[in-house]
């Protein structure tokens, strides 16, 4: 592929500009061009959600999203999920408290899915975080840690 095109993306608040091939996938752009390897490539078919990032606040599977489709967008990856001072976000803390990471390969995608939901304003009608989480696979766990974390987050939301 000889053609290339230039894209401008804000990644975790930082403006990035790059010359890319039109068939470059967003996950490869992040992992290989920007060196942001926290985003994981697992199924490469949109089935597992390990590669989830937030594109203008909405979760997308970066393995099925062309990098050019993110041109002009505001992108959030796992590297930007923690608080500015480097401590864990509320979502990450809940997952930590509930003993979630096992092998950890699904974890960045799970965190981003939950962060994405937390940023929905207004909340999509009739949808819950639990239904969103069905988009992501974890092969190590029985999802109970995630459920406990969801409960913890709900409690925290209830008593801010």
């Amino acid at each position, binding site marked *: 592929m000889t053609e290339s095109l230039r894209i401008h993306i804000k990644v975790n608040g930082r403006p990035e500009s790059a010359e890319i091939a039109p068939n470059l996938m967003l996950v490869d752009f992040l992992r290989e061009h920007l060196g942001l390897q926290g985003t994981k490539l697992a199924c490469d078919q949109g*089935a597992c959600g390990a590669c989830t990032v937030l594109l203008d606040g909405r979760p997308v599977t970066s393995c099925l999203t062309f990098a050019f489709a993110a041109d002009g967008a505001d992108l959030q990856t796992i590297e930007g999920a923690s608080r500015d001072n480097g401590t864990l976000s509320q979502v990450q803390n809940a997952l930590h408290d509930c003993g979630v990471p*096992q092998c950890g390969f699904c974890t960045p995608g799970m965190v981003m899915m939950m962060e994405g939901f937390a940023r929905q304003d207004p909340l999509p009608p009739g949808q819950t975080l639990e239904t969103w989480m069905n988009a992501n696979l974890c092969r190590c766990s029985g999802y109970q840690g995630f459920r406990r974390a969801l409960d913890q987050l709900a409690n925290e939301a209830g008593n801010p």
Partner: protein
Amino acid sequence: MTALPNTLAHVGRSLADVNGHDKLTGAARYASDFSLAGMLHAKILRSPHPHARIVSIDASKALAVPGVVGVVSGEDLSGLDHTYGMFIRDQPVIAVDKVRFAGEPMAAVAAETEELAYRAIAAIHVEYDVLPAISCIADALAGNAPPLFDGRLHPSSLQPPPLCSSWVQEPAPNILFDFSYSFGDIEALFAGCAHISEDRFTLARQSHAALEPHVAIAFASDHEHVEVWSNNQDPFLLREDIARIFGLSAENVRFHAGLVGGGFGSKSYCKIEPIAVLLARKTGRPVRLALTMAESMMTVCDHPAEIRLRTGVSASGETVVRDAVVELDGGAYADASPSVAMRMGTRFNGPYRWKGVRTRVRVIRTTTIPAGSFRGFGMGHVTWACESQMDMIAGRIGLHPAAFRAQNFLDPGSSGAPGERVLDCDLTEGFNAVRNRIADKTTSANTNRGTGFAVACKGGGSSHRADARIDIHPTGDVTLAAGVTEIGQNTRTILTQVAAEVLGMDTARIRVVNIDTHSTPFDSGTHASNGATVAGLAVRDAATKAAAEVLLFAAGRLQCRVEDLSFRQMLIVHGSASYSLSDLIDPTMKDNPASFSGAASVQTPGGSLFWMPIWTVAEVEVDDETGIVRLTRLINAADVGRAINPQRCISQIEGAAAQGLGQALFEDISYRNGQPLTATPLTYRMPRLADIPADFETIILEQGRGPGPFGAKGVGESGNLTIPAAIANAIADAVGARVMDLPMTPDKILRAIRAKAGASPSGR
């Protein structure tokens, strides 16, 4: 949890994963994140045909693609010891002369980018002479089945058969292995039984589908040396395999392993690593071979199987004698199948007393994905058949399934078969733990709701060697090195807790290092739930020795007897005085140690080192119009001896249970016309959060008889074993219909319900 009294500081506490912060922030690094300067990217050309002779391979067009640096195919294997397999070495690194399953590696390309490698494999031209496919056991055993191999025996390193058993390697075309086991006078015992049940059960092809696909990065600095970074869970075994295949000395082969993104058996033993090494040697450059998850699913799977059970019981419902005949579909190549056959072949007694058990397990070759080790190593197969049949027998002789089980459990301290390890758990206590919970909870009067039990007991930790080293640095930091792979069982956390307990120190100051076979103490592989138990013992002993080194040195510096000193919280206490390690380091002296080291090695005997029991009750609702089953409640109890980290034990059991749930209800790589239909992550249905019952409970029992540190035992392989049978038993309880073929999809359930209605027009 039913806990032992705990006066320990670290053991028995639910310490969060020591790598948890990195995993949650994206900082954790896996082999798939690793790269080397100048690295090439490899892709594998896979056979589209399940069975064919290779007439010719023309890679000239691939080599002409700019950026393609090297191509390898079967002919590059000449002069090498080119096959591998755990006990029987029949699998070529790349197909030679023939392909034996759709998806088998035919050739591999290394190019400057992965995209170029993809283009290049598409440019390789292969001419095949297509042969008939053998998609299932029945096809393989049919009289006119074409043989997969020419009939010569493959090189093997089979272990002598265990007590009461015998085996034959490759006894007939398309039969890889034939294992027999027997104790007791089987036919005489059957003759004396009041009831005899004969039933047939089948299992489908389950995929491990770990989230991180297989990856290997290889570099050969010269013809004598190879260095590999991979996510294989057996770096030390791989070192031997690579050395043997390429004729290198094992010291010149170096494997690295860090965090691994899940395995469940798929990353054990030799897999794709030799292809990466072959390309690295051919190109002289580092080569990264990263499979897609779909390719990983084509690399190894669990065994589809047929199990016929004939079981005799006395008039009062005593279990007397069992005869099991098993055919395992081993796929095209041996992988770990002979070992799986031997393990499962000796375990058809399950958790009950018998006067005689006879088993025959044959591994059949088919033109399908090679089957290998999968969490439970055949015990899931055994438990599916035996625990389903326990309920069927109970029904036939008019006993309650729970009572029938309870009256036949092996007693603690007794042995279930000649030479078998005595039972180190209390089956009755565990069973009552789940039985009482369900009695407490069942409230619904819904007629299509039922409950089912299942119990299993898997051996763990056999024939294993684990070494460990502890280095106490003068700063008060500790480095822990052990060859057990961190694959999501959180073994680093468990070992950290063991070391912290022995050294009386803060877990935060212990660092577990990645594995490097040049410097990390040996480990014979992360298998059979041995990590916490066997490596745990090695870490305990290494820490004890390192602490003794500290005291010996301190005694010299303080001019006192070692016995007058103690070492807690990184302080050396002498009477009322206490010293830090750095206090004792005298810069004017030459004999200051860089660190205080302790090394230990633990070798376990063959046979089971401990038992991993699991007790399960499932509750389901069955829609008898659609055949859809809803799992409404799942309760597991497991004995862990002593929980070093209760949360980690629970996670292991919950995660295994989810895999068991998938196996029960939908997981299956099915074949049509020799082609896999569902060997991709998109088409292979796996459990998601919504599949997990809201009422899902895990009870950890500490029965205190584990051989590991502080009385621990392994727990990684028990949680999935019982789930399919417990669900089948619950379905039968709900609607009176029995499904004997996994997975229990709605169509099979409906058929069973209709067959039942047809058999008894009065309804259930």
